[in-house]
């Protein structure tokens, strides 16, 4: 009887120890900035005259969005993720969906990360019809018609792939890219050109940065302690 009590206490202590340990063990992070070197390419206006509805949504026109250099000289829409170093760890796909919106005949977000099996909630906010055509090579392609404003659909990707192109064949200028991964360790550079990959455990990682036009770059990084934040930098050069 006494032996059982001791055994139970030890189990409870182990559980408490684990609960206390896990958050601090996954507190490490990789942060960084995507620098851009050289002259930013001219962003020609997108010709949206193929659909008057799209044109009306942008009376002042809208620039091409394949290369966006931020005012601080950084590059937007770069997908940064852990390419190697996670071993055989598995990560459950989140239940909450990634929101993907068609608004102003453009995709929002243009570049994003999603886990295998995580729902992608696709919304048409436009007063015109779109088709959402995802062209993965490792998951099943899908092509969905979204003719009604406010219409929502959900899809998932079944295999990791960096990157999966999503396009609208009605409006050929519309293109988005999804980084489909087995894990949640990714980020996308925004208006400040920065990114953050959180909740990593100590270890050696290969980090890859992907851009639609400028391709990929990799960086090896070692995180030695659970509370370390490693700052790295990628530099993409004007071609």
């Amino acid at each position, binding site marked *: 009887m006494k032996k059982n009590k001791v055994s139970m206490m030890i189990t409870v202590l182990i559980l408490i120890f684990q609960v206390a340990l896990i958050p601090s063990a996954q507190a490490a992070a990789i942060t960084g900035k995507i620098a851009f070197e050289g002259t930013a390419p001219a962003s020609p206006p997108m010709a949206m005259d*193929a659909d008057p*509805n799209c044109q009306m949504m942008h009376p002042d026109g809208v620039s091409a969005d394949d290369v966006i250099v931020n005012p601080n000289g950084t590059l937007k829409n770069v997908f940064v993720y852990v390419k190697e170093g996670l071993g055989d760890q598995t990560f459950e796909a989140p239940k909450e969906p990634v929101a993907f919106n068609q608004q102003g005949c453009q995709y929002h977000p243009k570049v994003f990360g999603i886990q295998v099996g995580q729902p992608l909630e696709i919304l048409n906010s436009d007063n015109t019809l779109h088709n959402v055509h995802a062209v993965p090579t490792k998951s099943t392609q899908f092509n969905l018609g979204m*003719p009604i404003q406010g219409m929502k659909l959900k899809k998932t990707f079944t295999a990791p792939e960096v990157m999966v192109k999503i396009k*609208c*064949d*009605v409006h050929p200028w519309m293109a988005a890219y999804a980084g489909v991964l087995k894990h949640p360790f990714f980020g996308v550079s925004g208006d400040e050109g920065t990114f953050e990959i959180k909740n990593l455990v100590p270890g050696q990682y290969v980090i890859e940065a992907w851009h639609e036009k400028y391709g990929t770059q990799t960086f090896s990084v070692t995180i030695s302690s659970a509370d370390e934040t490693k700052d790295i930098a990628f530099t993409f050069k004007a071609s």
Partner: protein
Amino acid sequence: MGLNRFSRFLAFATYLLIIAGGLVTSTGSGLSVPDWPLSYGSFFPPMVGGIRFEHSHRLIAGSVGLLTLVLMVAILRAEKRVWLKKLGMLTFGAVILQAVLGGITVIYLLPTFVSVFHACLAQTFFCLIISIALFTSPLWTKAEPVQFPKSFWIHRILFVTTALIYLQLILGAVVRHTAGNGIVYHALMAFLVLTGIFLSTYSVMCLPAGNELQRPAIFLGLLAVAQLFLGVGSWMTRIMMGESARQGVSAVLFATAHQATGALILASCVYLTLLSLRLFIQPESGHVSIVSGGADRI
């Protein structure tokens, strides 16, 4: 005569359909309408963006399908030639198969084999209609074949050239539906096809002057020259200049014109081959005299 006029009109409509289909591929609009046979669940969706090309293609295809049905019924009712009746039915079968292939390309998201098959069947169907137009024309029905000593060789040159053009058409469709794969074979084949066409034109020119083959043969030679330039233009705008240029107006126009001219070349060569078989026959004894007769056999 009415049947001939109707089949000529259908040939024109089919050619428009080939151009419309070419525009769908060139603009990358093939999947802008994700459902089939309806378009976004309706008969007439808003004609915006890529839908303008894809839905126009479907409308023209529907019209050609109906016209082919009318042609088949007219042939079955008015014609006495059994083989022509069978050809009419085969042509209608081809247009039905073509519609089904079109649907499969949409539903299964442009599988390469089906897309290539769809492209090749389109041009085969065009040749069938051209053939029906020829078979129902006075040029065919009232022809009096003449014996000409080199007919055997001319028939074979034209036949081999037609086969080469058809093979080139398959290669072209593969290049087009696989973003440039097989372009080297398509380019090499172009030289063989050009040789065949110029040899065909030359051999037709060796036939007695004033025959009905000479004008289409000159037309075929001119088309081949134009096609060479259009092919180079397509290659430059769609493959050499990369993805950014692929959606440009010049790329779309070059590729579509190249495909449409290819259809005309194939149809012209089929026309020449059939007409040469009808108008010129090899003398049995091999002597050089030109003798008329034999029209009642066909």
